[in-house]
């Protein structure tokens, strides 16, 4: 038979940009419908900002505030920008567990047998997760104002939200990779916490790093969550911004450049 010896000279069809947007749009709709079917999946985005803000402000706020020299009100001004940074990381994790569940159902086979770009499925997940994060940030700011946060700088607030979104979308690629590589959602969650906890608490999010031992400060100073929190403080409350802003953006670029191609590659070749 001639087919066995025929050489394939034709190249494969490319997907135009409009096609990518259409596919990503259809998949975003799918992920939004999930939330509509299962509103409980929004509980974490709703409750996390409320509970964490109340906990930190009323449990630690008094004593750390005293040390900072501004009392509880002073601590609120310190911790709220940090909370935005923290949530960008905590909520990003959901992208990995959701993805892992997808893989364990047959629907991923269907997607991969359709003529769509492999990135579309991943981009849609990230877009919906960013929307969830925006919702959580709105909730956070409402609680923040209720516990005494002063919004003096709206431009700074929006810049902070933008910067958090940039950093979050980079870290989501890491969680997506975990979602593709690890066997089930539980492993993704467990692994996620191992990454999450040291980064969140070994940072300047909840308390200034001045009193920490030198070895820990070496870590916290380069922890992107510290720089994100410090940049957020500068933007929202006042103070130096440039250094922390550039370090955070640098981290985002590096993490995305490494994790995104790897996640897409793993997604493409996963059998």
């Amino acid at each position, binding site marked *: 038979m001639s*087919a066995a010896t025929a050489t394939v000279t034709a190249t494969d069809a490319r997907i135009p940009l409009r096609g990518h947007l259409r596919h990503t*749009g259809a998949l975003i709709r799918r992920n939004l*419908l999930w939330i509509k079917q299962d509103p409980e999946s929004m509980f974490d985005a709703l409750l996390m900002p409320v509970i964490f803000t109340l906990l930190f402000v009323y449990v630690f706020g008094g004593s750390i505030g005293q040390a900072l020299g501004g009392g509880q009100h002073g601590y609120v001004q310190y911790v709220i920008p940090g909370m935005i940074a923290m949530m960008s990381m905590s909520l990003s994790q959901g992208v990995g567990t959701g993805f892992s569940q997808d893989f364990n159902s047959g629907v991923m086979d269907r997607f991969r047998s359709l*003529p769509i770009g492999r990135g579309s499925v991943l981009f849609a997940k990230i877009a919906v997760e960013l929307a969830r994060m925006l919702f959580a940030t709105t909730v956070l700011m409402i609680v923040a104002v209720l516990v005494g946060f002063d919004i003096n700088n709206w431009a700074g607030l929006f810049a902070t939200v933008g910067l958090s979104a940039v950093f979050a979308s980079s870290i989501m690629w890491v969680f997506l990779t975990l979602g593709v590589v690890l066997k089930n959602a539980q492993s993704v969650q467990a692994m996620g916490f191992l990454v999450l906890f040291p980064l969140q608490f070994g940072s300047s999010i909840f308390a200034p790093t001045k009193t920490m031992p030198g070895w820990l400060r070496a870590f916290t100073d380069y922890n992107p969550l510290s720089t994100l929190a410090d940049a957020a403080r500068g933007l929202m409350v006042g103070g130096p911004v440039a250094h922390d802003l550039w370090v955070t953006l640098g981290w985002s670029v590096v993490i995305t450049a490494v994790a995104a191609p790897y996640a897409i590659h793993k997604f493409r070749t996963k*059998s």
Partner: protein
Amino acid sequence: MTRIDNNPSGGNTAVTVRGLVKHYGETKALDGVDLDVREGTVMGVLGPNGAGKTTLVRILSTLLAPTSGQATVAGYDVLGQPRQLRRVIGLTGQYASVDEKLPGWENLYMIGRLLDLPRKEARARADELLERFSLTDAAKRPASTYSGGMRRRLDLAASMIGRPEVLFLDEPTTGLDPRTRNEVWDEVKRMVAEGVTVLLTTQYMEEAEQLATELTVVDRGKVIAGGAIDELKAKVGGRTLRVRPADPQQLRPLAATLDELGITGLATTTVDTESGSVLVPILSDEQLTAVAGVVIAQGITISSITTELPSLDEVFLSLTGHRASAPRDAVPTNALEEVAV
């Protein structure tokens, strides 16, 4: 973009597989498979669990890259032209591949959009296919609330959105009850009537006989037999007539009489002592009538008389001389006892 015209003499081939090999480490899931499916026909790929059926479908639908060998679907190479290939195929996997959290309609609309249908057309196509697969009433319910049969029908509908040229059905009725199985068969027959080429994997001879025009029997990653379904049926003895005398004492005399007469030319009458019946392989309705005539002429009272298609195990036994390498629960285990002729 050029497609390979692999058979210029006419009678186009929709699927061509040459020397296809897939190894997972030491395991040879596919060990050199050749296969041709002509346009507009239904190819049944029959084999036990672990024979490589699913691996074959996954390679042909570009979900998996082969270790070596060549495969084209509708003229597109699985490795070189995956995107074009994906545009002309439909896939219904072994497990329903629909989004369980999404309502039926949303599942179909989403796939329509992913196949680049304009919004209006995607909506119309979703409505049309739900209607056709009798799912209109369940359109707004999440697929997780569907019964097994409804889910499989939704899966078939999803595979049909892009009006595929070639449809892959990987064990489409495994795990379904007999009534639902018939429903799915009817749907597949309708699709075939519309001119879709189908490659179907199955563990059931009955399913292959219902749907396929041609059959490829696979075992341990290799093709062990192939051809038109009637030829293969002749090879494996077609149906089996099961005659159960009311008096178990009559069992052996009846078997001996039938063997002596040799109506079917197949001297393999067996006695199934467990169920108390004589099994006679038959190739035609004439032979069936003749055997029934002998039974009546003998004056033996019969408590039941039924015809059965060969089980996968029996097909393997007659084709290869050994039993299928399937786990034992995949095949019925009849206590068969050969009668010396």
